[in-house]
């Protein structure tokens, strides 16, 4: 697919996203391409599994090509009255894994920073659903609450040393290994039955909340469920929102509700985000925050291959009459034709009509 075609499709998508975000008073945030490396070094694991491109600036500072937008937004957000609500569409630069090399990734998204109320949380979720619906009618937005599984394990006295491994297995929906680990550590079977129900449960949000309320949750998990229940009621009528507790995020940065968005034919999440008060605290901001990113580069394969031609007319010439050839090309382009000239037919180039420029005129 041509870069131009993809970038025009991306422009179209971003225009739709911008309309959605500005309709709720979010303002555009523009970031430079570089940031001091120190910012990422201190929060390395927030940029999951990514390598960072660095260079030394003229004044000796170690700089990085931005691998992420969220960190910059928080860093550059001064404490103020009310909330900071911004959206962006930027390139970030990272290598997803050591074998893949660095690439430029187009990312759009938004951040809501400040003293968030439950309304703000619901609004961000609704905007995430709106972003997905701009990409596909058949989107799915999965929500989870980090306090639910964590709280459930703690409330039910599951030994602290096996909790991280159980949570990792929950992410894989791997109940067979979770059960074996729990058995070895004397976790009661009824606890693991409930755990398995939770990690395999996937249902529309309100329905899922109802089903979870019959489990032996404990105080902390019940509190998390109550927040989800309020969100479910507020978002009643918004299509495509599901609960999936296997969805996990790094607890050092994220807390509360987290989310991932999916559309058909893209084998990984196209949207990712959640509540990240942990990150704002690490950056010494006394504020809550929630946001999400839409990975526009993943949409490349959904843009249909062009079936047309690269030019209307291909003119072959011998280069001996530049003045006459230019006149002929100008006449054709003035007539609205796309014209390519060359001394031989370029490989793979598609055109409607082939002309030759010989003896001062064009011939079939």
């Amino acid at each position: 697919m041509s870069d131009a075609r993809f970038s025009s499709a991306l422009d179209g998508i971003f225009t739709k996203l911008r309309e959605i975000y500005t309709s709720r008073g979010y303002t555009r945030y523009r970031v430079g391409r570089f940031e001091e490396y120190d910012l990422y070094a201190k929060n390395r694991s927030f940029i999951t599994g990514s390598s960072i491109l660095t260079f030394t600036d003229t004044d000796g500072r170690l700089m990085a090509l931005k691998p992420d937008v969220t960190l910059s937004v928080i860093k550059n957000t001064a404490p103020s009255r009310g909330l900071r609500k911004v959206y962006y569409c930027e390139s970030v630069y990272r290598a997803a894994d050591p074998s893949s090399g660095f690439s430029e990734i187009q990312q759009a998204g938004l951040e809501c920073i400040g003293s968030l109320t439950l309304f703000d949380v619901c609004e961000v979720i609704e905007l995430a659903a709106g972003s997905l619906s701009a990409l596909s009618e058949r989107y799915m937005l999965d929500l989870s609450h980090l306090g639910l599984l964590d709280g459930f394990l703690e409330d039910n006295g599951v030994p602290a040393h096996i909790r991280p491994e159980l949570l990792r297995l929950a992410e894989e929906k791997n109940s067979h290994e979770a059960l074996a680990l729990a058995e070895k550590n004397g976790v009661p079977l009824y606890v693991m039955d409930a755990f398995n129900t939770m990690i395999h449960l996937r249902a529309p949000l309100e329905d899922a909340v109802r089903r979870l309320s019959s489990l032996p949750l404990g105080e902390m998990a019940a509190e998390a469920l109550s927040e989800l229940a309020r969100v479910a009621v507020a978002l009643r009528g918004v299509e495509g929102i599901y609960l999936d507790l296997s969805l996990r995020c790094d607890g050092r940065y994220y807390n509360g509700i987290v989310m991932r968005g999916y559309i058909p034919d893209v084998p990984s999440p196209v949207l990712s985000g959640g509540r990240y008060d942990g990150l704002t605290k690490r950056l010494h901001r006394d504020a809550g925050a929630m946001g999400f990113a839409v990975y526009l580069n993943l949409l490349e394969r959904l843009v249909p291959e062009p079936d047309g031609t690269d030019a209307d007319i291909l003119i072959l010439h011998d280069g001996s009459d530049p003045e006459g050839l230019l006149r002929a090309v100008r006449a054709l382009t003035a007539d609205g034709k796309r014209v390519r000239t060359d001394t031989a037919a370029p490989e793979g180039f598609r055109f409607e009509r082939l002309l030759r420029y010989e003896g001062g005129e064009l011939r079939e």
Partner: protein
Amino acid sequence: MKEVNSVSDILNVALPKGRLGDKVYALFERAGYGCPELLEPGRKLIFESAENGVRYFFVKPSDVAIYVERGAADVGVAGKDILLEYTPQVYELLDFGIGKCKMCVCGRPDFRDAPARTLRVATKFTKIARDYYAGLGRQIDMIHLNGSIELAPILGLSDVIVDIVETGATLRENGLAVLSQVCDISARLIANRVSSKFKYEAVTQLTRRLSQVTEVK
């Protein structure tokens, strides 16, 4: 942006080529996902049973996880060794309890580890070996090999190897022994995380039916 229509209810299943694939297919068949076309002689690469809602293809065992992670297959069957080594972002839904073997540290029977020296470890499974020794706090010199791993300690290339042991016959014939066990290995049902959402009913039903015909539940 085109509205895709390829999310059909048919499940694309990646099976490992070879003996394990045959055994696993027998389980799929018993679970009601037979594909008679698959048993016919020929050179076809993809086999479909529209009636049972499955489409099978056989790939190199180490590639199954890639097909599933990238969404070319909705589900697949991969060895736990491959899942531990490459850590694909997939769901692991079932332990088939077949293709059982162990990932072990092996070496000469009289080998004694001297903690003062860096341990030389030859293996095809570098991540598994690195994680195992990191857990023990042991510094190692990793030697990545692609095959004939047992040769390494015999020829003095390494002190030990980390490799899959099924019966231990090859080790014994070459004067080697299991020194410690790293983990158990068996065949697992894996699923693409996005397909599992858009084909939720089909994947859930497949997992349930397979668990009913599988020894380990």
